[in-house]
């Protein structure tokens, strides 16, 4: 196995076995871990506390226990998170942070106290009016409150220097990830849709410093090789996340390459940088204020569609694939607007309704295949 394959294999293994990977990271770094529900948790503060932020984005569990709390028309990602909480799969975490972005997440916060009392909950609410001064000030107050909670868990005070160092690290991570997603089209065979996804996903279960080093090394190694000829279809993928395995396999089989993404699970996490001015918490708050084109954040101009169009143009993509998380209201509301805009721009689009736990991917496979044939 060459070095590239080695790194990839390691990251894929991490992404495929989150609990094992997190426990290994905890051991390696000696840190306690804090679970981070989607979306935009203040991982920099967690890291600054000397804790390990871990992403909790559902999984492949069968849902049984969660039915006691949630009707079947709740998004699968949250049903699975609650299920896993109930099964005790998060017991090794010192706390979880749940930010109440959507109506579902508000309810999950509330249910968590009762359903999973053993895993300490830090609820958070982000301002929707995030661009006005009052919104920024509110968010800073929220961050301060969460910071205190984290200090208690870590048993240490977080200094401004800790926060600044953490921001430097996260900025480096974000920049690295933007570079990584940008080289996918040059190494489209090695970084096929599935591998690309798993590599990005691994970050949620590792120490960001160690992860970033790995990605940098991977890119260095890749650059030594000649570029791979891209003979498939180039797409921009949007949605909450692009899973399951069967779904990703179908993309790979049909030679569909993700040249860019607008997934909440992937690029939305790292496409926006912090500002250079201000205190650490101000800089973090302004990152939320500056982050656009996400269904979770109020935007009366609805820039989501334009963002997708820009991504298609910049990356010379052949179309957009929508991975619509079933029962996800914020995403479902954005769709009719950007659909119209993409159509007006003459951009082909494939709409797939996904659940994290899908019994059969047969229909989706067929649709992906016809889309590939149509765009070719």
């Amino acid at each position, binding site marked *: 196995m060459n070095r590239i394959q080695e790194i990839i294999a390691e990251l894929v293994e991490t992404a495929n076995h989150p609990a094992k990977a997190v426990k290994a990271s905890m051991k390696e770094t000696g840190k306690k871990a804090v679970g981070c529900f989607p979306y935009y948790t203040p991982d920099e503060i967690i890291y600054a506390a000397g804790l390990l932020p871990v992403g909790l984005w559902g999984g492949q569990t069968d849902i049984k226990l969660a039915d006691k709390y949630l009707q079947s028309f709740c998004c699968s990602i949250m049903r699975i998170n609650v299920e896993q909480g109930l099964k005790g799969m998060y017991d090794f975490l010192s706390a979880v942070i749940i930010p109440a972005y959507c*109506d579902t997440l508000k309810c999950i916060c509330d249910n968590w106290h009762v*359903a999973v009392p053993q895993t300490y909950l830090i609820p958070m609410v982000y301002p929707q*009016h995030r661009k*006005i001064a009052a919104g920024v*000030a509110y968010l800073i107050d929220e961050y301060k409150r969460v910071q205190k909670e984290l200090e208690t868990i870590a048993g240490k005070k977080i200094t401004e220097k800790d926060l600044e160092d953490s921001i430097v690290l996260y900025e480096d991570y974000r920049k690295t990830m933007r570079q990584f997603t940008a080289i996918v089209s040059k190494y489209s065979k090695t970084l096929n849709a599935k591998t690309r996804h798993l590599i990005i996903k691994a970050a949620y279960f590792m120490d960001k410093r160690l992860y970033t080093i790995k990605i940098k090394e991977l890119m260095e190694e890749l650059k030594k090789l000649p570029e791979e000829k891209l003979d498939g279809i180039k797409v921009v993928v949007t949605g909450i996340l692009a899973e399951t395995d069967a779904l990703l396999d179908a993309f790979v089989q049909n030679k569909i390459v993700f040249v860019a993404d607008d997934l909440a699970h992937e690029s939305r996490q790292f496409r926006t940088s912090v500002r250079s001015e201000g205190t650490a918490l101000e800089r973090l708050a302004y990152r939320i204020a500056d982050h656009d084109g996400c269904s979770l954040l109020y935007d009366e101009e609805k820039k989501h569609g334009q963002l997708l169009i820009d991504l298609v143009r910049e990356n010379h993509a052949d179309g957009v694939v929508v991975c619509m998380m079933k029962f996800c209201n914020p995403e*479902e509301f954005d769709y*009719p607007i950007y659909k119209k805009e993409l159509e007006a721009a003459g951009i082909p689009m494939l709409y797939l309704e996904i659940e994290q736990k899908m019994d059969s991917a047969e229909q989706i496979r067929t649709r992906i295949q016809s889309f590939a044939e149509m765009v070719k």
Partner: protein
Amino acid sequence: MDKNISSKQVLNDMISRHYKEALEAKKSGELVAWATSIVPQELLETMDIKVVYPENHAAVLGARKDAPAFLQNAENNGYSNDLCSYARVNIGYANLKESAAGNIPMPDFIFCCNNICNTVIKWYENLAREMRIPMILIDTPFNHTFDVPEHSVKYIREQFHHAIGQLEQITGKKFDHDRFQEVMNISTQTARWWKKATALAAAQPSPFNGFDLFNYMAVIVCMRGKQEGLDLFKLWAEELQGKIDRGEGPWKDQPEKYRVMWDGIACWPHLADTSKILRKNGINLITSTYPDSWTIVYDSDDLDAMARAYSSNYANRNLAYGAGNIVQIVKDFSLDGIIYHSNRSCKLMDFRQYEVQRQVQEQTGVASVIFDGDQTDPRAFSLAQYETRIQALMEMMEQRKNERPGGQ
């Protein structure tokens, strides 16, 4: 007010006048706003802006069985049928602009407060975008704590100022702070009288007639800041008190056998069916979580108190508050049962309902059932299931009555 006119008649007049006036205002070039059901309407009323409430309009279309065409239109435009049906009806209406069940003028701007849910932010964003009109948002952060935290209060208060600036810009008029005081005053009084009237349902038998609450709700939503609204609730309270004094129950032809609360919104397209089945069995629906939701009360000169009040409604507070609130209702209204509407439209109401039901059951022992329905999408409701659930509720209530001394 003419003493011979019943509050029901006044109510119906007011509502039809409300819509008529809005249409006329639009025709004569006045500004019209669309707003969510628990917005700080004080700001709009002060500016003398005509407001219509899409949720109320959607409910009207639903009740008059005219929702399907609009639902279909929204779905044809890419709106998932999993989204709130008020939003789908309204978005469909914004496209089609014509319903035999009643029309509303198109808005010049929209005014949104997410104290009821975050769904309205997305829904209104889309309206603003499609119609290219301004949007004013008052963001009331969800209270995962029991009370409204101080930094939320400050944030909401600052947004009032921000919204006033936006309103001045949109209307080209100065905001009149004296008038604002007046409106705040009336609004608080209206809310107090709404609460007072609805609290009279606690009498045994209750003077309420089943689904009255849902009808009068239209006024607390649409006319909270107006003198007529205040007068209506005074008149209604007077009538109810009269019935109580005369010992009159809800129905002339049958006694009130069971007293229940309805959790959630009505099934507007099936209003007649859902109420008939209850009445047939002597079940009287006397309250819900609504009376408190619109009891927006604060001292008239205090913006912080107003901010706190607009963030303190049931839907924006945590489960501990929600369950505690219902436990109190069960006691105050001497309830025999609770009907929980698992409303396909409303994720915020649904995804805490199972746990609320358990906690209320544990603390009060009150009988309860959950049924599946939707507020305006007729497809999500099954009469057979509803009937079976109500039957089960009856049996539980009967059993409890028999277990308790005196049968009460």
